[in-house]
């Protein structure tokens, strides 16, 4: 079964999943404990934070809280909203009266935690204003998060939501070899090995890093490893970051045949095309249009525009 809501490990890292209340980013804890990831950051509801900190302590992990993230709708009057990332949140200090989620940093090393947390600021809306960190902080934060240097440099040069309607199209167009499933971060908030956007979906450094993590996960929790692999070897429709559809099917030339369609991350965006795609079982992809069919009958289409610059990509292991 694809995209089960939660995965609860039987043993390794079970306490952390139970404390968090979800298994999102579980692979990042594996990466940290495997020595592949110096730092990670999480968002935990205040009601769960104490239990979470205790669970981290059990695995020898240190934590540092930074801010409350509050998921409220952004209005046009927020000054500097153009700096907001895909995570559009209001912010308040830890200890303030709000619920929301607490942004917390985790590391195996106290020194790494102390240094890394200084780079992790998000452009939260505070008193009606978003404040963005200097660009070099993104680069160094990526290093603390364990991202390969080539991917970080690529991100620094190309990650610009104002310039590109679909920032994921840039690494897609930079992919020279067939996309490799170990470079697939499209399902990063559910089942994945990586959280960063690679410089190409064939990045050798990413593959090297991810292979080590895959081996580690298979040693510690093979069931989880198999679950991740099943989610990576799929075709996808990518409209933009966080607006991605996975298909239980096969992409052959310009035709995608599938049994089911899933919206990868319903946390931030509403899935505009999910209803249409769920009704169909075949997509014929043309340059500016993707025609959706239910058997032989065309039931709809997805147009490509300047603000909707989607692409299809398959990581199928052939």
């Amino acid at each position: 079964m694809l995209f089960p809501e939660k995965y609860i490990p039987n043993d390794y890292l079970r306490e952390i999943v139970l404390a968090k209340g979800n298994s999102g980013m579980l692979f990042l804890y594996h990466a940290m404990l495997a020595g592949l990831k110096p730092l990670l950051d999480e968002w935990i509801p205040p009601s769960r934070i104490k239990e979470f900190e205790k669970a981290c302590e059990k695995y020898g992990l240190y934590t540092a809280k930074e801010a409350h993230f509050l998921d409220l709708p952004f209005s046009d009057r927020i000054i500097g909203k153009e700096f907001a990332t895909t995570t559009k949140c209001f912010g308040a200090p830890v200890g303030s009266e709000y619920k929301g989620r607490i942004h917390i940093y985790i590391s195996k090393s106290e020194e790494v935690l102390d240094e890394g947390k200084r780079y992790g600021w998000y452009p939260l809306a505070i008193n009606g204003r978003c404040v963005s960190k200097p660009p070099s902080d993104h680069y160094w934060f990526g290093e603390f998060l364990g991202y390969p240097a080539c991917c970080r440099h690529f991100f620094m040069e190309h990650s610009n939501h104002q310039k590109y309607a679909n920032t994921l199209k840039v690494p897609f167009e930079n992919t020279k070899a067939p996309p490799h499933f170990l470079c697939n971060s499209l399902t990063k908030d559910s089942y994945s090995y990586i959280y960063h956007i690679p410089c190409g979906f064939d990045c050798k450094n990413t593959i090297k890093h991810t292979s080590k993590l895959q081996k580690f996960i298979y040693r510690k929790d093979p069931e989880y490893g198999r679950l991740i692999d099943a989610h990576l070897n799929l075709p996808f429709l990518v409209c933009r970051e966080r607006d991605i559809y996975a298909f239980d099917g096969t992409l052959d030339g310009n035709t995608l045949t599938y049994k089911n369609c899933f919206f990868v991350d319903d946390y931030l965006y509403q899935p505009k095309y999910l209803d249409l795609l769920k009704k169909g079982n075949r997509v014929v992809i043309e340059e500016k249009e993707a025609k959706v069919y239910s058997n032989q009958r065309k039931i709809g289409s997805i147009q490509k525009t300047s603000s909707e610059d989607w692409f299809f990509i398959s990581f199928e292991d052939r």
Partner: protein
Amino acid sequence: MSIEEDFRRKFGFGLERPFNDYSYDRAQDGGLSYSLNLMRETNPKKFKRIREFASKHRNLDNEHLMLLNAHLLYMDKKYDRALKLFLAIASKNPLDINRWIDLAFGLLHAKKYYALGLDLLFNLYGYIHYCLKLNLQTINIPNLLLIQRAMKSSKDYNNKYLFPIKFEEEFLILSRECNNNCITCPNETRDRLALDCSIREYIERKIGKPYIKKLVFTGGEPTILPDFFCILQEIFSVRPDIKLVIQTNGRAFFDPGFIHHLGEFRNKDLVFEVSLFSHKPAVHDRIARCRGSFVQTIKGIENLLGAGCMIVVNLGLSELNKTNFQQTLDCLHRSYPALSKINIVPLLPSGNCLTFPCRRICHK
């Protein structure tokens, strides 16, 4: 050709950042750091030449070059040195929110000041407001901590974080220059530089906000500004309802010609807060560090009272006047019963106060 023009010609982008008062409601200007980072990624050779340019001009007291050097140091992770420059740049114009934002990230990375930097990011408007309220125009770590204490202990400051902060009282530094040089001044003598922003635009944006009920003109000495009365006229023509407080040493009002201009503001809510240190001329002049300032200040108070103006005397307490302080109070009550109020103003451990023998009586 200026250095800024030379830089732009050589590298294709500018060093200048337009003044961005926190009341302008404009997004931060991160253009310089963005351009530098992009250049580093896309054109390392040109970026190397930028470093050489910055290094060659490092010792010039040019704010744009200071900013360039600060951002280059930041990119190289030399955060303590970058922080020194960010503090100096913020001091040059503490009204500009871009400088405070740079400062916040500088603090975030400095070993000891992470918590302070985070607090500044959550309370940007509060820090700027209280900085102006305390008239601290030198931004350094002790002053930031002073501001933080004043902010947190104030009943009026209750940040809910989710909404824009609207202060009913706003402070405007009209001029940093002053014709006194008081020992008690929270700003150091060497920081008496002109502001680099358009006063007019700055005032227009502030008085355009209906929730602002009171404007306080501070300085330096506001009356030194050549178009002081024009500014008053403009403010009251747009906002006849506003309360305007002028923090002054009162010396300009010694001149009857100067007082005469006040006639047109007769029905306006205009208050003068005049700084005085003693009823004894020698003591006052010694603290103000200007011979003859007592005579002019007292005459100024008398002329203002004669013109029917509302006067508050700010009596600064220091080591040099503490002995006869009660006598000064009694003398003011007797001689000028029409005074609205007398404020006793403790010193801030900042600026000139730290250099002279008055620091033992500092506001804690």
